[in-house]
């Protein structure tokens, strides 16, 4: 159980430092089960910081998203570090960004938050009615406690946490300058049983499954926007010349889009599940990502976002790599 006072004290101490620009964390959202990213620039802001099973968003996205405004002539760019709160999965995003040199180690200050699982709002809303009241939540003895308007309710963790948390092998941050709270038990297995049901299908059946899902894609690009690994200055999807993917929303172009997104994440996806969480039409993108993770793990014995000194998988070559996939 995390002590919020301690967290806030740490945040205050952190942002008081000369070498910290601001701190990125979470705060309670405006209604219901929502939480918001919170950019802490002063001591007052720090009072609102929280860390709870509702803090679903992966804040690492904001590390690369930060706008680099032109520096006036004669002025020095602000090179102070950005402090960021990360869960286990988020910390892997930070590591992978380091591997890809999207950020520099000396420009981030990582506050690790060991995490027992994040609530999947969709699963929760099946159990309790939607509410406009702000709801607070916390972990307690393997359960998740919610302060609902109707009173306190406790749910077994596995019933309401996100799918990614059930398979999570890295609940404790893999990189941190300072850690808040105690390390938690690793519960996920190293296997890929969760996608077995899809793997056993034949190609036609799998295509039928995906075609149906992709067909509903409205190309809002939320999955791309939220992804901590998608931070190209000019995305392939936005290019007009050449226009790799047409603007029209149909199965063909949608598939091209989803496949391009998946390919670009091969050996890079760190399974934070943000794409799936934000998808308004509920495409099970994590199945696609898990398949990639499985292939990468089986073919190259590689797990992205663990070792900041690692070479990017697809930029490296080892003579003993398996090449079973080469025709």
């Amino acid at each position, binding site marked *: 159980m995390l002590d919020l006072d301690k967290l806030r004290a740490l945040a205050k101490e952190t942002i008081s430092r000369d070498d910290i620009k601001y701190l990125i964390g979470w705060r309670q959202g405006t209604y219901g089960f929502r939480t918001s990213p919170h950019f802490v620039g002063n001591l007052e802001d720090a009072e609102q910081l929280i860390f709870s099973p509702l803090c679903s968003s992966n804040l690492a996205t904001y590390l690369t998203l930060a706008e*680099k*405004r*032109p*520096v*006036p*002539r004669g*002025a020095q*760019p602000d090179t102070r570090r950005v402090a960021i709160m990360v869960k286990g999965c988020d910390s892997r995003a930070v590591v992978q960004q380091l591997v*890809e*040199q*999207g950020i520099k180690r000396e420009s981030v200050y990582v506050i690790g938050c060991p995490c027992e699982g994040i609530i999947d709002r969709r699963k929760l809303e099946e159990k309790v009615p939607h509410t406009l009241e702000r709801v607070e939540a916390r972990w307690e003895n393997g359960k998740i406690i919610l302060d609902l308007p109707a009173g306190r309710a406790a749910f077994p963790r596995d019933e309401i946490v996100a799918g990614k948390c059930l398979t999570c092998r890295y609940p404790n941050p893999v990189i941190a300058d300072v850690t808040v709270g105690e390390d938690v038990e690793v519960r996920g297995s190293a296997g890929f049983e969760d996608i077995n049901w899809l793997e056993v299908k034949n190609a036609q059946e799998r295509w039928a499954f995906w075609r149906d899902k992709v067909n509903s894609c409205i190309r809002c690009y939320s999955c791309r926007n939220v992804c901590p690994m998608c*931070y*190209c*200055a*000019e*995305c*392939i999807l936005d*290019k007009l*010349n*050449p226009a790799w993917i047409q603007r029209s929303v149909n199965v063909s172009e949608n598939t091209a889009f989803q496949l391009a997104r998946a390919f*670009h994440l091969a050996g890079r996806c760190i399974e934070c599940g943000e794409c799936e969480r934000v998808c308004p039409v509920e495409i099970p993108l994590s199945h696609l990502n898990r398949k990639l993770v499985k292939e990468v793990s089986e073919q190259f014995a590689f797990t992205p976002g663990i070792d900041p000194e690692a*070479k*990017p998988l*697809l*930029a*490296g070559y080892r*003579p003993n790599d398996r090449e079973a996939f080469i025709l």
Partner: protein
Amino acid sequence: MSSKPKIGVYICHCGVNIAKTVDVEELTRYAVRLPNVRVARDYSYMCSDPGQLMIREDIRKSGLNRVVVASCSPRMHELTFRKALLEAGLNPYYLEIANIREHCSWVHKDKQEATAKAKKLLQAAVAKVRFLEPLQEKEVDVEAAALIIGGGIAGIQASLDIANAGFKVYLVEKTSSIGGRMSQLDKTFPTLDCSACILTPKMVDVASHPNITLLAYSQVESISGYVGNFQVKVRKKARYVDFNKCTGCGLCAEECRLANRVKSEFNMGMSNRSAVYLPFPQAVPAKYTVDPQSCLYLTKGKCGKSPKCADACPAGAIDFEQKDELVEFKAGTIIVATGFDVFDAARKPEYGYSDYENVLTGLEMERIISASGPTGGKLVLGKGDGEYVPKEIAFIKCVGSRDKSTGNEYCSRVCCMYIAKLAHLVKDKIPEANVRIYYMDVRAFGKGFEEFYDRVRREGVRYIRGNPSEIYRRNGKLVIMVEDTLTAKPLEDEVDMVVLGVGLEPRRDAREVIDLLRLSQSADRFFLEAHPKLAPVDTATEGVFLAGCAQGPKDIPDTVAQAKGAASSALVLLSSGKVKVQAQISWVNEATCRGCGYCAEICPYTAIEMVPVNKMGHQVTVARVNEALCKGCGACAAGCLSGSVQQKSFMDSQILPQIAALGGKS
């Protein structure tokens, strides 16, 4: 940017190679109707002088500014046609080749379908050529020095040739003396020249040549740079003997506490040396080396009261304080002559090499036969009082060659003849000996080889066709189990000694060289040449050449010939002093580059550097292409996640119209 594209299309019949399967007249009529095409012509041989003239004339007269040639693979004649464009005053990179031979006429039978496909290919080439941009070929200076890695006969020959042509040579040898495998051989087939007698003069020439810097007992540590400008770092390992003071007198070795107690590598472990040693009497440089693996002083920290070698040396050359030394220099070109390893006979356990002392390898037999070998050239078995002269001697060929079970499918090319030679030498020393050779095939392909094979048979050596399955010991003798496949009879052959004709293998440390120079290997794991027939000494890395067995098994004449070939290729670079670099290289859009460094990691030529740049006052890292190093392979462009790396002449904006044309309706 140039004005509106005016395209000329030239369709080659290639005799009947294309015309037989593709309706070239129909293709020409089709080509004229394509957008921006001004002229379209067909001709029997476009690559011929009149064919090229046709192109040049049209460029001059009709003001063409783009050319498409529909012919064979661009690997054949792209350069030819580029030259034609250049001669007519057009940038040579305004050319696109539609390969309607290898990609079309040669792989199809149906004329109608092949013509339809040729149309597609042509249409795609026309679609692309419109967007091509002019490129400039640049030249870089060539450093007038060569690095030669490996001091065997290949390295020695290449060094001498280049040095004699007046250029500086750095010859790096890993062991303490040059000479390589050839120095271990006794006589050489088929002429029976004494190996040492023909090799040592060359070794001495190397040592005394004013243009050669010999770096023996040294290893190349790193190589950076590119053709014409390689930066080389060599580690000169500590000999613990002052190179300038040592006179090679050998008193240190005589006095060494471990005298005759360390196995001699040169004699294949069959005789002993001291911990301070000269590998063999004719070694070059004739300087002693302390073996850090066995020397008591270096391994234990003490050697009696004081090291005896140091006490004995009249020149005071022993220096245990010596440290490895790093030597740096520049070289314009590199020859890799790192040689081979002998197949480890222990990997064929059925032949009992590890178990029976009278089972020897060919190279061990060379040392035994040699007058400078462990027995002084006497062929005897046993030791001391038990010494006896073997009477029954068998040779087995293809041990570790032509054998899938060992992973070596190739023929080692030298075993047939070295075994014939050894058999001859055995008969020479012991005329009454019964010598037989078990073989699969006899490959006596070289000059004088068949004659020598014939001679050996006439001397009474028996050739028995059969691949022995096992060797075991019975009553103190070795028994070879084999089927004589010509008479289909199983044999049990009782002999005194067996010599295994072990093959040649890639060096076990080949990986180090590959990593240094980014070389490729062929399926047999030897270094891969750029083209098996037309560029047999070149590699994919420009300015790096291969010589000797590093490229594949070969005998001494072939090795020397290849070394001379490599030297001549290196000299072309050195004497011209300039080298043209690829024009179709990569280009980085620094505005969108996010500095991830994937391209730099992927690049097989280390041609991409990550450099800091100032973007609107922020220090960011972007990729930058070294134009001299880039070979235009396009790996970076394929690897770039953000599409910021593009390869000139293969930009997205150029190949997408081409792909679109292939996909669309014709």
